[in-house]
């Protein structure tokens, strides 16, 4: 054995190709990219060639699926999400508590909407009540599509898939993206009494008035997201696909048919109505990469904030950065970081007015402080402009 190995003319090379180094020493590999030696004069780039606050190339395409009311495919780098929105009808008869809880409210609602539209506060509350209590938005995200090796197809949704589905749902609710009014199917009962009595007493007909308009059914939007390919940052891709699909969604015109006692729809595309969405919230995710590989492990002892800050300042002066905030992390970077942040921003008045933070989430560590988060909001605001352009084109 020894003789055969010795007989090789060339000694085994000690250097590794980059791809093997990346697998063996992932942390050192990424760190070497982010903090190149000063002598080399190279800019600090990530292993995938992006700058720290650079997002991956994003593309979106809407309306390509036949059997959906609205659909979209969004690719962010190598992560791809397909979203299809299907609308089905929920009759108020099928809602257990409908007649008890809502029959009385309706008339007051109706009067209110007739008298003035401006009463936004109570309208918001009512929107929330209908969409949230009746589960009119049903987002589900599936990762068991063979999108990454870890997820066994056919098994129950993993913890990640469940958490992502729930995040989508809570973001849909908190942004109030879909207006409840788009989802209601109204019925105006004909004024039979007035017709019958009309011949005899014309005078009274004005007093009796029309019977109150009532809600006969709701549209329920099943929003299904299939992550076809997962290479990091599934939430941004999933949310962008949901947003693009909802923008593409058309609901047919529906009415209560008194003769058949069902809801009927018109298949004419001219009658169909697009959803009117509130704003355009865009999600941007970040992760924090620590130069110290063990940073995530040692944090049992709470560091002395002052002392650490002083140390950081010193290192900064020396040109040694200890922490990088990476925008839109890919799968490789996600595996190397503990701390994640997600910022959802919207811009009022179609991007002309100020930026609004819709959701801000940070977990897994305490390295990102207030200043960092402020910067992330600025980066997210830039991302908003970019995403708006992409979504408007699709």
């Amino acid at each position, binding site marked *: 054995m020894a003789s055969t190995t010795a007989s090789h003319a060339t000694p085994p090379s000690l250097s590794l190709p980059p791809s093997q180094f990346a697998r063996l020493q992932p942390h050192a590999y990424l760190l070497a990219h982010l903090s190149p030696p000063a002598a080399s004069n190279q800019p600090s780039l990530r292993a995938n060639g992006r700058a720290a606050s650079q997002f991956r190339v994003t593309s979106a395409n809407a309306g390509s699926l036949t059997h959906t009311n609205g659909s979209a495919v969004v690719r962010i780098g190598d992560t791809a999400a397909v979203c299809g929105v299907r609308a*089905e009808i*929920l009759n108020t008869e099928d809602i257990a508590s409908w007649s008890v809880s809502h029959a009385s409210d309706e008339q007051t609602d109706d009067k209110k909407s007739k008298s003035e539209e401006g009463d936004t506060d109570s309208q918001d509350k009512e929107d929330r009540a209908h969409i949230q209590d009746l589960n009119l938005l049903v987002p589900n995200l599936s990762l068991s*599509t*063979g999108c990454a090796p870890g997820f066994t197809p056919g098994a129950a949704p993993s913890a990640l898939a469940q958490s992502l589905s729930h995040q989508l749902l809570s973001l849909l609710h908190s942004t109030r993206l879909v207006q409840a009014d788009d989802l209601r199917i109204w019925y105006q009962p004909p004024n039979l009494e007035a017709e019958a009595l009309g011949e005899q007493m014309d005078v009274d007909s004005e007093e009796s008035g029309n019977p109150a308009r009532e809600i006969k059914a709701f549209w329920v939007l099943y929003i299904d997201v299939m992550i076809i390919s997962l290479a990091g940052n599934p939430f941004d891709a999933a949310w962008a696909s949901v947003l693009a699909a909802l923008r593409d969604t058309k609901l047919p015109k529906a009415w209560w048919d008194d003769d058949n006692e069902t809801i009927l*729809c018109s298949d004419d595309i001219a009658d169909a109505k697009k959803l009117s969405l509130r704003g355009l919230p865009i999600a941007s995710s970040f992760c924090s990469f620590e130069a110290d590989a063990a940073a995530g492990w040692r944090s049992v002892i709470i560091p002395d904030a002052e002392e650490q800050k002083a140390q950081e300042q010193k290192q900064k002066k020396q040109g040694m950065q200890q922490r990088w905030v990476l925008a839109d992390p890919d799968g490789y970077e996600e595996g190397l970081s503990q701390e994640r942040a997600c910022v959802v921003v919207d811009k009022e008045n179609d991007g002309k007015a100020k930026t609004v933070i819709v959701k801000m989430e940070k977990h897994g560590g305490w390295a990102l402080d207030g200043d960092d988060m402020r910067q992330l909001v600025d980066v997210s605001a830039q991302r908003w402009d970019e995403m708006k352009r992409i979504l408007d084109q699709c």
Partner: protein
Amino acid sequence: MADRRRINGPPGGTRPPVFASVQQSSTGAADRARRQRQPAELRKIFLKTGLIPTASGSSYLEFEPSASLAAARSNPKSLIPPSSALKLACTVHGPKPLPRSAAFSPNLVLTTHVKYAPFAARKRKGHIRDASERDLGVHLETAIRGAIVAERWPKSGLDITITVIEAEDDRWWGDAPNSHDASWGMMNVLAGCITAASAAIADARIDCLDLVSGGVAALVADDESPSSTGAPRLMLDMDPAEHQSIVSACVVAYMPARDEITELWLKGDSSRAALEKDDERTGHEALVDGAVDAARGANTVLAEAVKESMERSIAQV
């Protein structure tokens, strides 16, 4: 019991919308999509490999939309689509070591999963695989197993996962309420699955005897068929939405280099068929031959896609 791991809709359940125009005219024959292709003309296939970098092999397959669907897309009038075109994504993970708990296997252990997206078909599908999806998985496994050189990977597993993003219709939508014949659309889906899986396996560099491709042929009895007898005619690569009544259909998984069929699935009565006068074949033979011809057509696309996959990997090195 409600699925606690997913977000469920309203507990009372929901109903798909009913369109008024369908109720009024029960026949609606004028609107039925017609086949614009010749009987032996196949639909174009779009097949691309390597779209999913985290998988060892992957492919995406799409059928060309039928003439009626293309017209409906470019100039939309109705919300009811006339027909649909298959779209599916396939990933291959492996070969990878089997879990410790698995029994010893001297061969590569193949597992196949076919899952429709909830929005894939005209009727909303559930999130949990139903019997028809499992059935497709079994058929796909048989088709692929015959092509893979399994003894080269002892004690390893190979997962093939197919997500059907858009499925074929089983029949024309206008006929749907009162027809109870077989689900013909599944056969087209299976043929697509076989071709896509074969491309993904080649993309994953798994040794195969040959590229196996799927093809469909059907015996179709339409009203306007020129044969006076009304006997069903042979059509390659049928779109069920374009035909009034499909008498019999057949899917094959076929390896052209060895002239070998690894999977044959035939449904319906194939005894009667209107063939050419000098054709001595029985209806059954004609049907299988037709499916093989369709598979040969798909194979040319498959070979191109695999060639592209190889060129890409060579360019990377």
